[in-house]
Structure formats: structure tokens, C-alpha cells
């Protein structure tokens, strides 16, 4: 019953998205919702490793950039192949990087792990800066194709693509959260030694976690070069990207798959509204204030607040 409802909503959202491209013609809406969804995917991806598994890290932004640069590489190497190919290849590349990084850093705990992942992001950035083929430090211009099939404009196609990636990210995250794997990840987050003693293959599960995190981050980054048409390392690897990805589940709640979905919607919407109506500098300030507010007042995020509320109400009824 519950399962059917979930799949119904997923299908409905996708169809509404398609319908949206047919009726709306102000491109601003597509740019704005694209940005919200990109943020949401990054929040979902970060949360799989940082929230479900408890490995808080600042390096996730590097995987986003690696996804974007996979697209740039393919664009240059194969004379602008369809974006869909990059969207399929980037998660594999970034998932593999996640697996490798996980293998070498997961023995570290807490703050050491967080710093090691940051170092990984810096290494990736250094590689890109020095790799002229993908534009090096100067960046890479990428012309969006003039002809789009089926849609009125390229941004509509990008919008549908990121919508599909978002829904897939939600499906993957929900599966990981509610399956046996999710229980194992929660056990790792609570107490890794106890988890291992109770038969949870912690190394294997942590590697699954980093691989999926990397893959989803890469998927979020793959269409990005087409979205902004000019990629350069400093903005792609911006630490702010990583901070935003952390803020999303922090606000929504880290324990469940729904947390980053809610957090992404909320934060993304605030961000877009403020950027458009006021200024992008103020936007950052507001994100900061919201984040600090949640961390100090509601560390379990919105889903935690909701659970507390329900618990109190149930107690009240007893």
C-alpha cells in the first residue's frame, strides 16, 4: 500500500514535470527548478554517506565537479556526444572514484575522515587545473546544441533530465534507507565496532555507501556544464557546493531518505527566491543563518521535529 503510494508519487511528479515543459514558456522557471533539484540530489548523495552511515565529510563537492568534468572530457574527446551519454558515464566514473577513495580513507574516523575527503577534493581540483585537455585553470566553454528533439528549448531538456536524476536519487536513497543495507548503515553510524561484532560487514557497506554517494554526486554534476555553458575549476570545486550539500540534509533531517528531499525543496526555494528578489550575497547569509538555526535548535532537522511532534501528540492521547 505504502509502496504503491510512493511509486505513484514518483510517476506523478515525473509526468507533471513533462507537462510543465509543454505549458510553461518562461525559461526562468526551468533554470530555478533545475537549481533546486541539483541541490536536492547533492543533499541526497551527501546524506547517504554523511547521514545514513555517519561519515560526515567536506569532500563530496569534489565528486560533483568530477561529474561535471566527465561531461567536459567526453565533450572534447568525442566531439560533443549526446548529454545522455555523459549522464550515464559520469556516475560510473564518480562511483569508481568513490569506491577508491572509500577504500583508502574509511579506516579514518571522525574529523580525520572529513579532512581526508577534503584533501581528495583538492587533489581532484589540482588534476583538473593542470589538465589542459579539459580547459585547465582557464575553464571550458561548451555550446549547447541548437536543435533539441521533443522539447522547445535546451533548458527544458535539462530540466527533464535533472528531474529524472532527482527521482532516481530518491529511489536509490529510499531503497538504501529502508533495506537491510540501511539497517546495517545505521548500525555503523551508531557504533561501528558493535555493528561489526553483530555480523555487519562494515567495510563492504561503507564502500557501497561511498560508491553510491560518488555516483549520485557525479550524476548531479554531469549536466552542469550544459546548464552554465562555461565550467572552470574554482567554481566547480567551490567549497560552498559542499557546504550546501551538507546544509540540505542538516535542515531536512539526516536519518531518513525524506530528510534531504524536504531540506532540498526548502533550502533550494529560499535560495532561488532570495537570489532573484534580493541578491546572491544575501542568499548566502540566509543559508548560513538557517543552517545555524537548525543545528542549534533542531539538530534532527525537520523530520526530527515532526517525529517529536507526533510522539508528543501520541503521549497526549494516552
Amino acid at each position, binding site marked *: 500500500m505504502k509502496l504503491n503510494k510512493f511509486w505513484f508519487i514518483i510517476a506523478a511528479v515525473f509526468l507533471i514535470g513533462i507537462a510543465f515543459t509543454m505549458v510553461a514558456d518562461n525559461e526562468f522557471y526551468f533554470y530555478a527548478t533545475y537549481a533546486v533539484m541539483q541541490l536536492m540530489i547533492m543533499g541526497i548523495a551527501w546524506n547517504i554517506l554523511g547521514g545514513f552511515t555517519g561519515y560526515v565529510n567536506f569532500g563530496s563537492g569534489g565528486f560533483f565537479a568530477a561529474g561535471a568534468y566527465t561531461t567536459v572530457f567526453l565533450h572534447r574527446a568525442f566531439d560533443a556526444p549526446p548529454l545522455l551519454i555523459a549522464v550515464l558515464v559520469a556516475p560510473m566514473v564518480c562511483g569508481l572514484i568513490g569506491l577508491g577513495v572509500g577504500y583508502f580513507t574509511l579506516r579514518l574516523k571522525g574529523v580525520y575522515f572529513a579532512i581526508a575527503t577534503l584533501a581528495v577534493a583538492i587533489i581532484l581540483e589540482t588534476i583538473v587545473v593542470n589538465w589542459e585537455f579539459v580547459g585547465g585553470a582557464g575553464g571550458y566553454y561548451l555550446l549547447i546544441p541548437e536543435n533539441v528533439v521533443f522539447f522547445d528549448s535546451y533548458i527544458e531538456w535539462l530540466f527533464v533530465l535533472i528531474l529524472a536524476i532527482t527521482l532516481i536519487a530518491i529511489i536509490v536513497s529510499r531503497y538504501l534507507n529502508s533495506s537491510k543495507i540501511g539497517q546495517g548503515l545505521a*548500525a555503523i553510524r551508531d557504533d561501528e565496532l558493535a555493528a561489526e561484532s553483530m*555480523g555487519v560487514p562494515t567495510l563492504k557497506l561503507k564502500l557501497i555507501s561511498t560508491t553510491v554517494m560518488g555516483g549520485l554526486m557525479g550524476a548531479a554534476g554531469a549536466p552542469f556544464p550544459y546548464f552554465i555553458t562555461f565550467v572552470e575549476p574554482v567554481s566547480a570545486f567551490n567549497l560552498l557546493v559542499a557546504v550546501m550539500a551538507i546544509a540540505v540534509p542538516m535542515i531536512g533531517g539526516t536519518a531518513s531518505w525524506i530528510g534531504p528531499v524536504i531540506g532540498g525543496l526548502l533550502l533550494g526555494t529560499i535560495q532561488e527566491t532570495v537570489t532573484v528578489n534580493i541578491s546572491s550575497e544575501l542568499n548566502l547569509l540566509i543559508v548560513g543563518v538557517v543552517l545555524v538555526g537548525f543545528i542549534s535548535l533542531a539538530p534532527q532537522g525537520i523530520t526530527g521535529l515532526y517525529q517529536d511532534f507526533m510522539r508528543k501528540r501520541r503521549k497526549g492521547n494516552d
Partner: protein
Amino acid sequence: MTEPILSVTNLTKRFGGFVALDGVDVSLGDKERLGLIGPNGSGKTTLINCISGALYNEQGKVNFEGSDVTGTTASSRAKLGIIRTFQIPRPFRSMTIIENLLIPMEYAASGRMESRNLRDQAMESLEIVGLQDRADENSANLTQIDMRRLELARALSAKPSLLLSDETMAGLSSSEVDEVLDILFALNGRGVAVIMIEHIMRAVMKYSERIVVLDAGKKIADGSPDEIVNNRDVERAYLGE
């Protein structure tokens, strides 16, 4: 003694330059109840850690049910049925009491569970330790004593064939100690071998068929409870000279 279920040979564990275990040999018969005693810091928990795989020993071997498990992960040993409790309870704090039990049922014992509803099977373990009415409470808010009960229930849910019980009874009242002893006797009656670490002498003496004594990382005695009580070395280790 029948074919040993566990045999630890020449096990040495160092922490930096400090030798926590020094060439320890222990073997355990099928369904045997072994007491492991020794003064504070003598290496009892370290030995449990090495048997369960929580720590790797740089020297010596651990054999379980005829196969060499030295160097394998704790989770793979747990799957084989080597299950330990923690001296300082380590519940999964974000989970309810019953969810804590589902972890070993889904993992350590996954191949060995009955096909019945897992929750029902978990409830049975909770009934054994007397936590059945609190199954859905959060485990983080339990008292120390109840955390020990949970620790034991979680270990039972993992369907051990060898249970390594590390001071499960510390802090319990005399009647509670008897309850836990009953639980462990019943478990053993179902064919589970048990190594019990305990400072409560009455309990170890009553429970153990055989007792191993550690002192400063060395095994200084190995024998029946009567032999241990009358052993001069043991007396010296405990009382000093």
C-alpha cells in the same frame, strides 16, 4: 574432552611496546562452560577481542570449529557463531530496543534464522532478559543495568554457537545475577559453548566447568573450579605478595 570448538594457540597481543597477552593457549570443548578470570588489566577483554576478531593478534592462531579464523574480520566470525558482549554496553543508540536485536538477526544469524516473523523471534530474546515490555523504547535512555540486559539479548539474537560474555553481571543484584546465570545455563543447555568473564566469584564458580586464570597477559592456571581455588599462583595474583 570432545573435539574442541575453539582453540587459541600461543596468542600474543601488543599495544605498542606493552604486551597485553603473552603466548596464551586456551581451548574450549564443544558445549563447554569456561570461566575466564584475572585481576583488572590482566588481558581478559583483550583475549575476547582477539577471539572475536575485534582486534587482530600479531602472533598465534585462533581456530574455530576446525578452521583457522586468524586474521578474518569480526563480522565473518560473528556469522560463524562467535558472538561477544561488551563489558561497557554498546547499544545502537538511534534504534529502539527491538531494532537493536534485528541487526544481528539480519546479519550475523541471517542464514540461521527460522523463517518465522523476525519480530516475534526478537521478542522471545527480550522475554528471556525481561525487556519484553519495553521493546519499542529508545535504547539510548536505558539504565546501565538495562543496557547490560540489552547487550545480552542482542547477543542471544545472534544465535551464537560460542558466546563470549564480558562481565555481563557487573552491577547486578544477587538475585539478578542468579537470573543471568539461569539464562546462561539454559543457553548452554541448548548446546552453546560459553566463555564467561566475571569478577563475581560466586557466579564464575557456580557456572564454570573449567576456569582459566590470566595475570599480566599470561595464563597462570587452567583447571576445575576446585583446583583454581586451591592454586597458590592464583592466590598470589589476586592477593599479591
